[in-house]
């Protein structure tokens, strides 16, 4: 094990660091959108609700390569979004931010599903009770609904993070496999397996990615246990 760690090359470290960065940003940035989408789907009835639900789930159903290609069409230098963003220096194609975008979109359905389920489990009667006590809708959301849905928020964030860490198809299609910029763990493992003698590095990265996944799971368990102690129903 010690031997394996010392033989870690800079290219491998880069892939690990980049993957964690890409997954963290993907999770953090998509979280507010996930919360809003899940809450709307859990609490409101409106025309087009099934359409929204379908759109959210699309990345889960479509082949990841298709998602990646659609992103490339939209955010590539000649795409409708890319044409606006590129001159501003905010282009995402072939950059790590693009990898984050792809990872975030791929993890989004998982996050929304978990959050929606916990929002649906929050008794609307409690929200009404808060309203009779003088609380405004945003305050009720922040002090009653969201805290009660917190276990689902943690679970959704961990799922999205894990998905982002492992995302391959959409990422490699959208932002390619540029070491140091877009070469995340799965892309690096794939790349090492393509060259003779790369198995050692590939196995090291496999071990690292398993470790990170376990750490994330452990963290969510610990958070869940703390929440139970403070009286929040799990």
């Amino acid at each position, binding site marked *: 094990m010690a031997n394996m760690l010392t033989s870690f090359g800079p290219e491998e470290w880069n892939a690990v660091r980049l993957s964690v960065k890409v997954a963290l940003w993907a999770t953090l940035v998509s979280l507010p959108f996930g919360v809003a989408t899940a809450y709307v789907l859990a609490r409101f009835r409106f025309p087009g609700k099934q359409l929204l639900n379908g759109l959210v789930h699309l990345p889960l159903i479509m082949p990841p390569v298709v998602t990646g290609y659609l992103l490339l069409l939209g955010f590539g230098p000649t795409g409708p979004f890319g044409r606006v963003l590129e001159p501003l220096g905010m282009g995402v194609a072939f950059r790590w931010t693009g990898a984050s975008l792809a990872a975030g979109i791929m993890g989004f359905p998982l996050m929304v599903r978990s959050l929606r389920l916990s929002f649906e489990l929050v008794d609307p*009667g409690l929200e009404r009770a808060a309203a*009779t*006590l*003088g609380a*405004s809708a945003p305050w009720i959301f922040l002090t009653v609904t969201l805290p009660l849905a917190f276990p689902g928020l943690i679970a959704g964030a961990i799922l999205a993070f894990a998905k982002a860490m492992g995302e391959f198809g959409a990422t490699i299609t959208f932002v390619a496999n540029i070491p140091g910029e877009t070469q995340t763990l799965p892309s690096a493992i794939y790349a090492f397996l393509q060259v003779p003698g790369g198995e050692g590095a590939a196995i090291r990265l496999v071990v690292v990615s398993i470790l990170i996944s376990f750490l994330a799971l452990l963290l969510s368990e610990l958070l869940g246990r703390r929440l139970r102690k403070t009286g929040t129903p799990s």
Partner: protein
Amino acid sequence: MSFEIDIALRQGAFQLEAAFSAPQGLTALFGRSGSGKTTIVNAVAGLIRPERGHIRVGDRILYDASRGVALATRRRRIGYIFQDARLFPHLSVRRNLYYGYRLLPLRRRPAEPAHIVDILGLGALLDRFPAQLSGGEKQRVAIGRALLAAPELLLADEPLTGLDTPRKLEILPYFERIRDELKIPVLYVSHSSAEVARLATTVVVLDGGRVVQIGPPRDVLSDPSVVPTGVRNVGSILHARMVRHHADGLSELDAAGIPILVPRVTAASGASLRLRISAHEVILADRYPEGMSALNILPGTVAAIRSGEGPGALVTLDTQAGPLLARVTQRSVAALQLAPGRQAFAIVKSVAIAPEDIGSG
């Protein structure tokens, strides 16, 4: 402060059309389930919207369809005590209690919040969480939480349903104190004659979404045609004063000169009490009875006899303590030759008067 409700709404096949105004004190919405009690309370709270009509508390208009006024729930200044307490499970008792209080502007906050917490006996529970409370404790916290939000009208939707008798007895006195000591009107939903008898200043009887009678509990609860739970729950209410406690566990009351013995109640001598006597617990005799175990004998004159379709008859006896109802059989009415104007004696066992039938006021 008084309030006035005049609303109409339709929910599927159910049509509600209710209008009544209520004075200071506790107004009980009395009726069987599905009669529209909770719907009215929810309309007052702004949780559902009537199609037309208006709702006024004091001089504040909460809802007026013709003027397009419909205050949001949070602006109505109401306190709502739900049947299931609805405490926030993730907050401590302390943070539950002060949830509404903290949202009030300083000038509207109750002057002595700790006093309310003390009266409700919640001091020792402040750091607990709702999951660690008994049903009675939860309901006490819910009452405190509503009162600390400085309501101008208190709504209570069957707050005692689902509690066992000892818990009910624990909570009932708090509603009596709210009725007698606070200046806020209370709208209290119930289907229990005993609760209504003990708590209500005014009773509004609902049936099928309509008000069928309104009046003081003494009149309403003695009328078998309106008591929603049927003739078995008809009873009379006597007002009495606490005289003294006897060593054998009985308490002696005085109802307009007639001594009445009941199982020990916790009330200081001189305290005014109201007690409910179920009509089916009263025995009638045509002469002063002797050599029997029952302790309370009230002489009176038969005022009315109502016979239904069954074998029973409801006899109203005018006694010194007020009208007393006795549910007997038509056969007994004939055997005793009871008729309006005749002298009779009502016999009531002390143990037939349960603790929940005796309240203050």
